[in-house]
């Protein structure tokens, strides 16, 4: 009884709390393309396809559409509409893609997802990544210091370490104390490397990391001779700022920022070297050649990367997998032999051994001159074609694992499209159904649910009221979950989805009906109300549990195997069946128990709607 009351209060408080949280967090269900519209990205083939025959163009575009569908699917269950459409580009009839996604909040992401066409390259890190904030701070310090040869003047960066700014022999040193952030506008992210959220690279060895500190930084020489086939030698023309107007800043074009971050616990520090502002330092599109070192960024860190070890062509596929509570890994499937796993093993040997060609022991994946991720190696040789990528003992956050697997899986589209943003091919789109459809669905659904409520109360009296309250609990929880998934995973409710939810409400009443009918059976067998409620629930719940378990198993299979709107449906089905069980067990059981154990419950058994017929008192 005490447990019952606790469970009753618990579920009501939890539900109310979650509802409150949903409202405060501003989570609301996202309506689908058919109801609310969204954003549209038109992909027109770039020049290349004009050389193709019409059939080739159509095939490639159809394949590209499939890849884009998978990309969009993999980030959530947003039910996009991706259609291949004939279009007239520069007087030619070609096939293109119109990709529509519900919601308009994240236009940029939509463009990135559908427009990405680049080749995937794997390049070793030559230096640990430098957070852009540190780069800018060091550069400011350098410029400052260059003008004031007496020494450092005050721009400090967060974290512990020493910044060494070197310019043609003149050295300016600034020391940063632990945690004592000078200007405040430069965050201390990155130095400690403890804030995983900020780093899109993963398995990342940051400068503060023990293993990174143990590394011997390769020596950079200004006058190093670039030797063909010797990737350890860096062509410093990549580092200096060729376009930097030396006269304007007064810098020597060959000057550079040397950046030393102290190691943890007195370990050796690491040096990084840059010159000029970030934009001028980064490798240009023309300079991004497979066999050259490059300086690239992922918008958070600056990376110095060696020549390409291999490309996405070595991979057969990649998939994100759960590795335990909260943790995800990525399983990468390499091709056999010289075109696949051998290439990885060659890289693994140098990265695992932290050899010259891979002095940081980290391999970065690069798409379209953007560093997507980085990882280290746990073994110098991989026997199996399937290689697991994981991070630490907890793995990746789900989204990161999936996004990365996605990129590894479909590094490139089979056809090149014009940049939709540049070509002005991104626009908002309105809903496909009129407003009346949504309203009609909602009004009709509301009337339907109301009728159900009336029927339940008419038939089961007090128990009917209990059923409606239980329904209220599970519907509230459903709203919380749907709102949360809408906000976090882009779950979008289509009209069909809403009607499906209304149906699931009707169906979820079944667990109550099963219980009440068992109750009735027990009472007609001559039991008292109290013993009947306690007897009937375990039997009824077992029935409902195993039936819902079957539904849940089916939903999980559909969710795991399918894509698109079927996946979204499976998710809702699974959630609805779990919530049904929760409401039945944690609310219905103690509530009916309480109803039956009130003072005069036994005398008013008629009000329970389960035992009034064929009886005499």
């Amino acid at each position, binding site marked *: 009884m005490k447990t019952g009351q606790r469970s009753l209060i618990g579920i009501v408080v939890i539900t109310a709390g979650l509802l409150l949280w949903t409202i405060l967090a501003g989570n609301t269900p996202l309506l689908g393309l058919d109801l609310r519209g969204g954003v549209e990205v038109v992909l027109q083939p770039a020049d290349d396809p004009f050389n193709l025959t019409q059939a080739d163009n159509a095939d490639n575009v159809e394949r590209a559409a499939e890849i884009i569908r998978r990309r969009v699917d993999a980030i959530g269950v947003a039910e996009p509409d991706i259609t291949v459409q004939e279009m007239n580009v520069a007087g030619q009839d070609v096939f293109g893609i119109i990709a529509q996604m519900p919601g308009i909040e994240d236009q940029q992401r939509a463009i990135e997802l559908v427009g990405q066409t680049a080749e995937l390259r794997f390049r070793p890190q030559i230096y640990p990544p430098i957070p852009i904030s540190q780069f800018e701070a060091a550069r400011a310090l350098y410029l400052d210091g260059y003008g004031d040869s007496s020494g450092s003047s005050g721009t400090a960066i967060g974290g512990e370490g020493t910044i060494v700014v070197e310019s043609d022999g003149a050295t300016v040193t600034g020391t940063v104390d632990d945690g004592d952030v000078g200007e405040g506008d430069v965050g201390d992210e990155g130095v400690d490397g403890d804030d995983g959220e900020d780093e899109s690279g993963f398995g990342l060895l940051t400068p503060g990391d023990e293993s990174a500190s143990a590394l011997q930084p390769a020596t950079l020489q200004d006058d190093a001779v670039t030797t063909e086939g010797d990737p350890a030698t860096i062509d410093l023309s990549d580092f200096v700022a060729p376009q930097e107007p030396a006269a304007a800043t007064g810098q020597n074009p060959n000057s550079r920022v040397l950046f030393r971050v102290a190691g943890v616990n007195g370990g050796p520090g690491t040096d990084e070297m840059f010159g000029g502002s970030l934009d001028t330092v980064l490798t240009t599109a023309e300079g991004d050649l497979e066999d050259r070192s490059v300086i690239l960024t992922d918008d958070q860190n600056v990376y110095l990367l060696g020549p390409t070890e291999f490309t996405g062509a070595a991979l057969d596929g990649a998939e994100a997998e759960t590795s335990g509570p909260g943790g995800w890994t990525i399983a990468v499937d390499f091709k056999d032999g010289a075109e696949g796993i051998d290439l990885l093993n060659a890289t693994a040997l140098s990265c695992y051994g932290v050899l010259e060609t891979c002095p940081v022991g980290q391999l970065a994946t690069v798409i379209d001159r953007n560093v997507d991720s980085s990882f280290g190696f746990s073994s110098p040789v991989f026997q199996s074609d399937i290689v697991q990528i994981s991070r630490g003992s907890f793995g990746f956050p789900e989204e990161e694992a999936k996004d990365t697997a996605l990129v590894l899986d479909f590094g490139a589209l089979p056809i090149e499209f014009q940049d939709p943003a540049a070509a002005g091919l991104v626009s908002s789109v309105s809903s496909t159904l009129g407003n009346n459809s949504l309203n009609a669905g909602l009004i009709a659904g509301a009337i339907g649910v109301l009728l159900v409520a009336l029927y339940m109360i008419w038939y089961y009296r007090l128990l009917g009221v209990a059923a409606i309250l239980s329904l209220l609990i599970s519907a509230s929880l459903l709203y919380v979950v749907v709102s949360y998934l809408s906000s976090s995973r882009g779950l979008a409710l289509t009209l069909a989805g809403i009607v499906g939810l209304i149906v699931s409400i009707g169906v979820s009443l079944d667990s109550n009906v099963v219980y009440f009918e068992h109750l009735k059976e027990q009472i007609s067998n001559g*039991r008292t109300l109290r013993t009947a409620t306690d007897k009937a629930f375990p039997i009824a719940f077992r029935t409902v549990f195993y039936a819902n378990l079957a539904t849940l198993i089916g939903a999980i299979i559909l969710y795991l195997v399918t894509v698109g709107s079927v996946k979204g449906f499976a998710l809702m089905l699974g959630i609805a069946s779990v919530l049904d069980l929760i409401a039945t067990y944690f609310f219905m059981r103690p509530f009916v128990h309480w109803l039956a154990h009130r003072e005069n419950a036994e005398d008013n058994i008629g009000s329970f709607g389960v035992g009034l017929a064929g009886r005499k008192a």
Partner: protein
Amino acid sequence: MSDSTLPAAREYTDEPTGLKALFLGLTNINFVKLWKKAALVSLFLVLISLGALIFRGLNLGIEFEGGQSWQVASSTVDADGLRDALSPIGLSDARIQEVGNDVFRVRAEVEDADLNNIDQVSQAIAVAAGVSVNDINVNSIGGSWGDEITGKARNALIIFFVVLFVYIAVRLEWKMAVGAMIAVVHDILITVGIYALFQFEVTAATVIAFLTILGYSLYDTLVVFDKVKENESRISTSSKFTYSGMVSYSLNQVLMRSINTTITSVLPVLCVLLIGGSILGAVSLREFAIALLVGLLVGTYSSLFVATPIVAWLKEREEANIARRQRIEGVDGGVDGADSTSAIRDQLAAADRTREIKAQAKVTETAGPRGVSQQSTAVAERPTPSGEIPARPRKKKSR
């Protein structure tokens, strides 16, 4: 619990009849007899569905087959205006979107997509938008559903059936798994068959409706099976009842639950169909709701009239059950089918009491034994069945 609050023993004054019997789960419906008629009905529906699927096929929507796209720039019309213009030429379900500002795109699948029909749509759009037909961009579009979605959904369904077959086989038994799977296929076939028969457009939403039915049908069947299984374990081998009789009795017990669940599931769909689809004129809702409505009804029906008879038929072939049937049919007063649910009920109640008394005997301190003894009295005093459903003539075989 104090002694004084103990309620007086309740008694049935007479055997309940009609709705009252239904309410109490004490109906005397002979399901074994009904199964034979139901088998004919099911066979008929399945054949019609198969025929419609083979000879008429499904009317696949634009998501699957693609269609045409019309794009027009106009500041004098809105989406509703275009929808009104397209409804008279049979395109009330066209997908009309405003793209950016004042550009409208209409996507529709034109029946017999020849140039005349496409031109007709262009004309209607041109008139509504107040532009020349030449200003409308007409292009063909592919399906947005994609082969991959279909392929993966098919794989998923195969895995779905295999895994759930194993699940039911482990949880209940393989004969019930067979019954459940056949019932699910029966339901889906009939629901899809209606789409083929009436040539409703199959959209992405329709597929979702089919899957909803799949889930519901399975769930409903399992709830019914659970009751059968429960009674099966309560009826000993020396029982006076054949397996079919026991199943029929179980169905009488769950009848009210089936009816109530159907009502609560169907009411919202019915509202969506009648109010949303017809009165409020949301065409896209109507066909979707029809699929759901039919599926829900068939789903409940199949649990009682397809899944369970298959199980009964399979179980009656087991040696123990054959022996039981032979013994019962040879003994006067044996019960076949569901001639006397109240007799079975009394037997089951007695079995339960015996079990309970044994259990209570071990824990004499609790308040239980008194209640139990009173219940025994109550049941013992219950009159014999009034025989509102006439006993049917004895047959040699009821299979």
